[in-house]
């Protein structure tokens, strides 16, 4: 698999390297309401609205500077791993690349519309699996015809119906493994230009894990550029040829997978 990929990439790299994602001095700041003690009462809420004009800290808003001045250029055909300890800003960086989080400072330029692999937020537990497939597909921007065409594929891939007709039951009746399988199957049904995959997507039993890893590889082949967030150094080694290491929102290292992982493993004491 690795050989096959590198061959493909080498072929693409023969020509000029075409950038697909450019991050330029990117800063992301979250604002968190109610992070100060004693601000949860009704009167406090009112006074907070009244104090609109004053600065954020007076209104009980705390700022979390999640990404601090990250710059990089990603090229077509690259598979880039994002590593770093918990809370280092990996997922935030992905969302900013996808244009889902506004930048406080700096910019991200992209070729087309990058998409996060994941559809969880659009699904509803009280609806049947069947309706969730349609809803999730529409939320990802697929047309009704596309969804109809892929419906059986999605259901078969999830394996939900292997143990009886579960797809017509509400999702809240599924075991957590089954729900995760259906969510992944819906999310993976669409092809993407710039694909971003957050860690721990391949869930479920061993058989399903294998199947989903296979599907991720397929998606990667279709996509121009891939970002993968993971805490599993093995899967980073398997899939990525370049790694960005984030720590406390800053880009600590950017380079070939082996070099960065060696430093990272030293850092984490593995």
């Amino acid at each position, binding site marked *: 698999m690795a050989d096959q990929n590198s061959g493909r990439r080498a072929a693409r790299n023969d020509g000029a390297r075409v950038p697909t994602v450019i991050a330029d001095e990117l800063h992301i700041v979250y604002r968190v309401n109610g992070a100060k003690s004693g601000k949860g009462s009704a009167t406090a809420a009112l006074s907070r609205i009244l104090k609109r004009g004053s600065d954020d800290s007076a209104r009980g808003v705390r700022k979390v500077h999640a990404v601090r001045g990250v710059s990089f250029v990603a090229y077509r055909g690259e598979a880039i791993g994002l590593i770093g300890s918990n809370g280092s800003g990996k997922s935030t960086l992905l969302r900013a690349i996808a244009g889902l989080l506004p930048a406080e400072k700096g910019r991200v330029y992209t070729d087309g519309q990058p*998409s996060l692999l994941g559809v969880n937020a659009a699904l509803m537990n009280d609806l049947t699996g069947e*309706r969730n497939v349609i809803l999730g597909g*529409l939320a990802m921007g697929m047309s009704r015809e596309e969804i109809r065409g892929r419906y059986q594929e999605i259901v078969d891939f999830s394996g939900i119906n292997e143990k009886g007709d579960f797809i017509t039951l509400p999702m809240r009746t599924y075991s957590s493994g089954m729900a995760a399988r259906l969510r992944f199957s819906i999310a993976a049904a669409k092809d993407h230009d710039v694909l971003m995959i957050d860690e721990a997507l391949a869930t479920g039993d061993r058989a399903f894990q294998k199947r989903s890893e296979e599907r991720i590889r397929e998606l990667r082949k279709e996509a121009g550029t891939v970002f993968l967030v993971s805490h599993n150094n093995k899967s980073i080694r398997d899939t990525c040829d370049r790694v960005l290491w984030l720590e406390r929102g800053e880009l600590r290292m950017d380079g070939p997978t082996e070099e960065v992982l060696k430093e990272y493993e030293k850092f984490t004491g593995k």
Partner: protein
Amino acid sequence: MSETTHDGGVALGAAPSPDEGLPADRLAAKYGLSVSGARPPLMEYVRQLWGRRHFILAFSQAKLTAQYSQAKLGQVWQVATPLLNAAVYYFIFGVILKASRGMGHDTYIPFLVIGVFVFTFTQSSVMAGVRAISGNLGLVRALHFPRASLPISFALQQLQQLLFSMVVVFLVAIGFGNYPGLSWLLIVPALVLQFLFNSGLALILARLGAKTPDLAQLMPFVMRTWMYASGVMFSISGMLVGKPEWVIRLMQANPAAVYMDLVRFALIDGYGASHLPPHVWALALFWAVAVFGGGFVYFWKAEERYGRG
């Protein structure tokens, strides 16, 4: 493998390249990259929104179904809830407070039921609008779609809810001797205009609520005040007899009152044109177009910032 990656890695640092040293914005321009998450122009935004119409409809229907999916009676509650609401309001305002003020029973009960349901349509659209962005931040931060889909979808959900309530309204109207006629068709334009008005309000409040989620706590009080001022349980022209003409006109120009009165006029035989303010359809159209148009542009202006929360 190693050779390619090595080349790639070195190129990052030192390899001579025609793009080397080009500032990010120039490099982006050279390869035709665009700023991620930038707000599209207004017409393009409308086009994108239209492209998502199936999602908007499916999302509103999903929310509506999910609402009662755990109940044993299931979707029966779609009709039972408004029916019970009407019964409670009749008990309080019709029997205990006797707010009918000279209207006969045959007129007052349909009058009250229509008022409650039509106002609830606006009220729940507003309340859903406040939380449309702030309550769905997970969705906003995960997937790409024109954010106006959310408030409009919630308003559409309330419209479907109202259609269930209209079943109850028809039953009550017929039960009190108002039989279907051509005038009943007037509720269609009236409710379409009200839906536009509600969507506009939902868009405005969605933007405000995204920045200040506290509004969700405040809005119930605002809405209740608005309800009592709109003549849901009493007739404005009946209540204000003897007051200066302009006060009555002003109260009647209130959009909630306009839409309620139009539906009452359409369905109730005993509620004639004398209860309507002059130019009532012009007023209804004005509120719908002004609030929807204004709300849409106001919402669009902050499109790129909704993910921040």
